[in-house]
C-alpha cells in the first residue's frame, strides 16, 4: 500500500503539472454530455453489429434453407445394411447334409474410423497381422496412401472360428488400454484397436463334394441355384433378406429399424446318400477300368443309375458319371489337361464342356432304350389282351417287315420260343411278331399310358421333353412298329423308363417320381410333406404279377443272369440299343431290374452310353454294375437273402469282401461291406424255419422277421450282421467320419464299416462291441 500511495502521489503531482501545461490545449468538456454521447455511439456500434449479424442469419436461412436441410439429411446415417438370409439346407432321407449355407465373414478395414486417433494404427495393424496373417508393412502402406478409405476388404469369407481370436484380442486389449488411459496423461495415452468390422455373408457348402452333384446342383453366393434341386427348389430354399436401415419419421427425426432376415426353407430329399454313394462308386469304378481302352477318354461317354422305390416313386439314388465337385463346379481339370482347357477358352467351348458335365444324364439325355423296352411291349400286349401268354414264336434270325430285313440279336435264330422265352432270350423276331399282334393303335396308346414321350414331372431342373422323339399313330408304319417293339426308333429318358417299369412291376400304379419328401422351415417344423402321388393305373395287378414272373425268369434263366446278386431273387431286363448311324459300332447298353422278385422294394436302372470297349453290344457291362450295386444295397436296405448261394458265389462273395476290407484298411475313404453278406447268409439259414410266415410265405419275409426278433431280443450282433454295411456320417456336417481317428474322411467313395457309430438311423446303432468281430461273419443267431 505504501508503494501504491507513493505512486499515487507522484501521479498526482505529474498530473497537476501537465494540467497546467495543457489547459489551453485541451478544451474542457462536460463529462456527462460526453458520456451520453459516447454511450450512444457505443450503442450505435453494438446495434449496427447486431443488425449485421441478424442480416447474416437471415441471408444464411434465406439462401440455404432447403439446401442445408438436404445436406443435413444426406449426412445422416440411413445407409441400410442388408442382413443376409440363410438359404435352406438339403439333406438326404437320413438327415445327411448334402448342401448347407454357412455364415462367413469378410474382414473390412475402415481407415477413417481407425485414424480418428493416429495412435490406433499401431495396435490395430499388429492385431490384424497376427490374427489374420496379413503383412503389417502392406497394411501400413495402404493406410498411409488411403487414410480416408472406409471400405477395404482385407480378407474374404473367413469362418467364425477364424474371426473370433481377433474379437477376443480386441476386447481384452481395448479394456486394458482403457484402464491404462484413465490414469495416463494426454501425451502418453495409447491407441486402441478400432476401425475393423466384419461383414456377414453366407456361402454354400457341399460337404460331400461330388456326391449326387447332378441331382443337387450348385449355388453361388448370389443364392441362385443352377441345375438339380438347387434350381428346381430355388424359391423354396431362398428366404428374404433382412435390412437394418434409418428413416425419417413424420417429425423428420431419424429412426433406425431392423427387419430380421427370413431364412429359407430346407429340403429333405428322398435320396439315400449311402445308396447314392454305392451307385457312384461302381460307375466310377467301371469308368476307371475302361478308361482309354478302345478310344481316348473315360470308360463310357455317359452313364447313369437310377434307384427308386417302385411303391411310392421316391428316388433313392440318381447317379451319373462323369461328375464334378459341387464346391468347385467350374473345375474341369479332372477330365481335361490344362492345354485342352486353354484351347477351350479360346474356342469358347469351355462352358459347353461345363454344361455337358453339369447336366443330369438321368433326366436330360435321351437315347433309344433297346431291349429293356420289351418289358413295356409285353406288358402292353398282355394288358390289351393281344397276347395271352401261351403263344409261341419261331425265330429264324431275322424277319422281313415292309421290305426291311430286321435281324435278331442272335444271327442263327432262337428257334421256337414261348412268351417267357422270348423275353428271356430277348428275341427281336418274337417281339416284332408281338408288336404286329398288338398293332399300331395299341402300341401308341400304351406308350402314352406308360408316359413315354411325356415328362415325368420329377422335381428336378432340366428334364428333357421327348414328345417329338416318339411315334404317333400317323407316323408309325409297320417297320416303325416292328423296331419300337424291341425298343429302337424312339427315344426316352432314364427317368421315363424307370417310372414306366416301376408301374409294370408294382401292380400297375404309375407314381410321379420325386426327389423331395419334405420341406421344413428354418426352425425345423414341416411346411409341406410331399406324399406319393399315383398318376394313373397303367396295367392291371394280374398283368403286373405276370410281368414280375417273366422278368424274374429273364434274370434267373435268361439274358439277365449276370445282374443277379448272390443270395437274391431279382427280376429285370437287359437292353442293347444300337445308336444312329446304325453301323454296328456304338451302343447304349442297359439293365433295368427290381428286387426282391416277389415283392419289389427297389427298381434299379443302369444305362451305359457307349462303353469304352472294343466290342460294345453286351449288356453285361450294365448288369455287372447292377449286380455290384445290389450286392451292397439290398443288405443295407434290410432285404434278406432268399436264395442259397453256390460255393462259387460264396467264394466270389468272400473275395469281394476281402477286397473291401483291404481297401478299407488301406485308406479311410474306402469302405467295406463288412460281415454283411456272410452274416446274412448265416442268419438266413438259421431263420429259414422261423414261425413267421407271411401271406405269401416267402423266405425273405421269414428272414426279415427273424432279424426283427433278434432286434427285440436285444441281440445286437444278429442285427448288425443283418444290417451291415454301415456308414458313419456326422449328422451335423454330413461328412463321413473315420471312426478310428474321428477326423472327417474323404467322402467321394462312400462308406466304411461303421463300427461303433450311432448316427446311422437305418439300423440299430449300438454295435460298437462288434468292432473286433466286424470283419468276420457274425450271423450266429
Amino acid at each position, binding site marked *: 500500500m505504501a508503494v*501504491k500511495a507513493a505512486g499515487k502521489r507522484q*501521479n498526482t503531482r505529474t498530473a*497537476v503539472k501537465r494540467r497546467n501545461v*495543457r489547459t489551453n490545449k485541451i478544451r474542457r468538456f462536460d463529462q456527462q454530455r460526453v*458520456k451520453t454521447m459516447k454511450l450512444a455511439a457505443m450503442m450505435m456500434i*453494438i446495434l449496427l453489429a447486431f443488425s449485421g449479424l441478424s442480416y447474416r*442469419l437471415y441471408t444464411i436461412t434465406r439462401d440455404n434453407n432447403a439446401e*442445408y436441410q438436404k445436406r443435413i439429411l444426406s449426412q445422416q446415417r440411413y445407409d441400410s445394411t442388408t442382413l443376409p438370409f440363410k438359404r435352406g439346407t438339403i439333406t438326404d432321407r437320413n438327415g445327411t447334409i448334402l448342401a448347407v449355407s454357412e455364415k462367413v465373414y469378410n474382414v473390412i478395414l475402415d481407415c477413417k474410423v481407425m485414424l480418428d486417433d493416429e495412435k490406433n494404427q499401431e495396435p490395430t495393424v499388429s492385431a490384424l497381422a497376427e490374427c489374420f496373417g496379413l503383412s503389417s508393412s502392406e497394411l501400413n502402406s495402404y493406410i498411409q496412401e488411403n487414410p480416408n478409405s472406409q471400405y477395404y476388404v482385407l480378407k474374404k469369407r473367413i469362418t467364425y472360428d477364424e474371426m473370433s481370436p481377433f474379437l477376443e484380442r480386441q476386447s481384452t486389449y481395448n479394456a486394458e488400454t482403457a484402464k491404462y488411459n484413465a490414469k495416463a496423461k494426454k501425451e502418453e495415452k495409447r491407441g486402441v484397436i478400432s476401425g475393423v468390422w466384419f461383414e456377414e455373408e453366407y456361402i454354400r457348402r457341399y460337404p460331400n463334394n461330388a456326391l449326387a452333384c447332378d441331382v443337387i446342383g450348385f449355388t453361388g453366393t448370389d443364392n441362385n441355384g443352377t441345375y438339380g434341386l438347387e434350381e428346381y427348389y430355388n424359391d423354396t430354399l431362398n428366404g428374404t433378406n433382412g435390412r437394418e436401415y434409418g428413416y425419417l419419421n413424420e417429425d423428420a*427425426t431419424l429412426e433406425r429399424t431392423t427387419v430380421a432376415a427370413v431364412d429359407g426353407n430346407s429340403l429333405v430329399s428322398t435320396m439315400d446318400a449311402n445308396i447314392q454313394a454305392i451307385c457312384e462308386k461302381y460307375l466310377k469304378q467301371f469308368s476307371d477300368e475302361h478308361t482309354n481302352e478302345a478310344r481316348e477318354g473315360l470308360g463310357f461317354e455317359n452313364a447313369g443309375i437310377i434307384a427308386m422305390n417302385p411303391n411310392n416313386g421316391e428316388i433313392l439314388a440318381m447317379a451319373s458319371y462323369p461328375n464334378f465337385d459341387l464346391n468347385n463346379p467350374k473345375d474341369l481339370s479332372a477330365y481335361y489337361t490344362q492345354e485342352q482347357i486353354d484351347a477351350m477358352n479360346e474356342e469358347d467351348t469351355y462352358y459347353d464342356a461345363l454344361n455337358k458335365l453339369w447336366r443330369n444324364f438321368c433326366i436330360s439325355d435321351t437315347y433309344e432304350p433297346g431291349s429293356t423296352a420289351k418289358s413295356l411291349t409285353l406288358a402292353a400286349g398282355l394288358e390289351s389282351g393281344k397276347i395271352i401268354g401261351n403263344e409261341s414264336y419261331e425265330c429264324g434270325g431275322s424277319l422281313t417287315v415292309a421290305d426291311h430285313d430286321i435281324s435278331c440279336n442272335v444271327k442263327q435264330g432262337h428257334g421256337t420260343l414261348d412268351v417267357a422265352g422270348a423275353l428271356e432270350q430277348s428275341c427281336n423276331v418274337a417281339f416284332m411278331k408281338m408288336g404286329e399282334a398288338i398293332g399300331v393303335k395299341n402300341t401308341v396308346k400304351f406308350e402314352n399310358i406308360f408316359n413315354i414321350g411325356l415328362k415325368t414331372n420329377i422335381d428336378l431342373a432340366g428334364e428333357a421333353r421327348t414328345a417329338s422323339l416318339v411315334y404317333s399313330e400317323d407316323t408309325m408304319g409297320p417297320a416303325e412298329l416292328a423296331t419300337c417293339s424291341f425298343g429302337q426308333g424312339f427315344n426316352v429318358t432314364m427317368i421315363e423308363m424307370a417310372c414306366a417299369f416301376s408301374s409294370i412291376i408294382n401292380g400297375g400304379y404309375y407314381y410321379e417320381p420325386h426327389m423331395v419328401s419334405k420341406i421344413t422351415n428354418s426352425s425345423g417344423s414341416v411346411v409341406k410333406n410331399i406324399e406319393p402321388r399315383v398318376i394313373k393305373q397303367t396295367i392291371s395287378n394280374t398283368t403286373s404279377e405276370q410281368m414280375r414272373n417273366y422278368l424274374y425268369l429273364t434274370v434267373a434263366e435268361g439274358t439277365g443272369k449276370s445282374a443277379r446278386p448272390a443270395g437274391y431273387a431279382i427280376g429285370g431286363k437287359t437292353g442293347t440299343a444300337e445308336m444312329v448311324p446304325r453301323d454296328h459300332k456304338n451302343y447304349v447298353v442297359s439293365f433295368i431290374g427290381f428286387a426282391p422278385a416277389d415283392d419289389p422294394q427297389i427298381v434299379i436302372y443302369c444305362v451305359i452310353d457307349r462303353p469304352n470297349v472294343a466290342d460294345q453290344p453286351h449288356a453285361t457291362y450294365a448288369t455287372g454294375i447292377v449286380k455290384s450295386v445290389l450286392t451292397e444295397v439290398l443288405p443295407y436296405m434290410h432285404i434278406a437273402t432268399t436264395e442259397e448261394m453256390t460255393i462259387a458265389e460264396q467264394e466270389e462273395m468272400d473275395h469281394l469282401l476281402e477286397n473291401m476290407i483291404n481297401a478299407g484298411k488301406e485308406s479311410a475313404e474306402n469302405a467295406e461291406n463288412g460281415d454283411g453278406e456272410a452274416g446274412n447268409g448265416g442268419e438266413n439259414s438259421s431263420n429259414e424255419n422261423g414261425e413267421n410266415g407271411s401271406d405269401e410265405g416267402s423266405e425273405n419275409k421269414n428272414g426279415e422277421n427273424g432279424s426283427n426278433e433278434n432286434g427285440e431280443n436285444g441281440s445286437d450282433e444278429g442285427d448288425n450282421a443283418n444290417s451291415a454295411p454301415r456308414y458313419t456320417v456326422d449328422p451335423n456336417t454330413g461328412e463321413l467320419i473315420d471312426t478310428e481317428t474321428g477326423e472327417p474322411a474323404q467322402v467321394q467313395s462312400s462308406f466304411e464299416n461303421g463300427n461303433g457309430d450311432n448316427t446311422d438311423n437305418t439300423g440299430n446303432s449300438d454295435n460298437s462291441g462288434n468292432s473286433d468281430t466286424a470283419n468276420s461273419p457274425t450271423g450266429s443267431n
Partner: protein
Amino acid sequence: MDYVLLAVVLFLAGFGLLMVYSASSYEAGIDFGDSAYYLKRQGFSTVLGFIAMFFVSKINYKVWQRFDVAALLVSVALIFLLLTPLGVTKNGATRWLDLKIGLTLQPAEVAKIGIIIYLASIIQRLEERGKNIIRTPKGVAIIMVPPTIVAGLIYIISDNLSSAIIVMGIAVAMLFVAVPDYKWFVLLGAAAVAGVILVVVIATSGDAEGGTFRMARIRAWLDPEAYSTDRAFQTIQALYAIGSGGIWGKGLGQSMQKRNFLPEAQNDMIFSIICEELGLFGAMTVILLFVVLIWSCMVIANKTSDRFGSLLVVGVMAHYAIQVILNIAVVTNSIPNTGITLPFISYGGSAILFLLSEIGIVLNISKKCK
C-alpha cells in the same frame, strides 16, 4: 432497481438451461448415461450464480473500488496459478483451475470482472486529479497497460485468444466512453481493419501447409467448404444447423445436428442449435433480449452520476456486448472460429457465476440512480 434487466437476465438464464439440456442431452446420454448430466451441473452453477448476484446486489458497489488493484493482482495471480499442478487441461489448453472441492474456475472469467473494476476505479481516480489526465499518453498508458498485460498472460498461459480479445475490448470500450475523443478510436479501428486485412493476405498467400494453427483457421474461415471435413467441420455444421432451421425451426429438442455433427453443442455453438430448433424467430428473440439487456445497462450507465459506478456498468455492458457479438459472428462464420461462449446460455460454470455477479453489481448501481 432495474426490474427489466432482472427479468431479462432471469429469462436468459432459464432459457440457457433449457437450451443446454436440449443441446447436450443426446451426447450426455451416450457419454455419461445421464441425459441431464450437463443440465444438472449448469443448474447448480446457475443457482450459485443467482445467490452470488443476490448478495452482490446487496453490497454497495463503491466497496469494489477499494479492491481495484487487488482485483487486478488476484486476476494475474490466478492466471499464474494455471502453471501450477492446480491447472486442469482439457482439449490441449490449460484454462481451468481445480478448486479441489469438485469445482473448477476459469481465471479468464475472474480477469474480466477484475479488469472492469480496476479500470473503472483507475479512470475515476485519474479524473479526480484532472479531467484530462486520461487523455495524455501517460494516462492512457496507466489505463491500458494493465489490461494489455492481463490479456497477454491469458493468451500466453491459457492459450485463450478469445478471452484476451474480450479483456482488451472491455478496456478499449471503457476508455472510449471515458474520453471525449473520437479520432484516436477511429484511427485504432482503421488500424485494426488494416491489420485484419494484412493477416488475411498473409494467411491466403502462404502455401496451404505453412503457417500456424490460427492461420489455418483463417483459411478455413475464408473457404469453409474446402475444409469441411477437418478445420471448418464445426463451422460448416453450424451453418447447416442455422440454415436448415428456417423461420420457425424444427421445434425444441428436434435438432439433428446435435447428434454427432456438432460435438459439445452446449458450448460455443449453442446459438446454432437455437437457430436450428427455434428458427430465425428464436434467434432474433435471443438477440433482442440481449439488446434489451445491453440497452438497460446503457441507460443505467447514463443515469448514474457517479463516475466509478457508471464506468463499472459500461465495462459490464461492453463485456456482454462483445461476447454476444463475437459468439454470433463465429457461429455465422462472420469471423474466424475462436472459442467464445454465449453469455447466460452456453454451458460453463465460471462464466455464468461471474456474469450473474456482474449483473448483481449493475443491479446495485441501478438502485442508486434515479
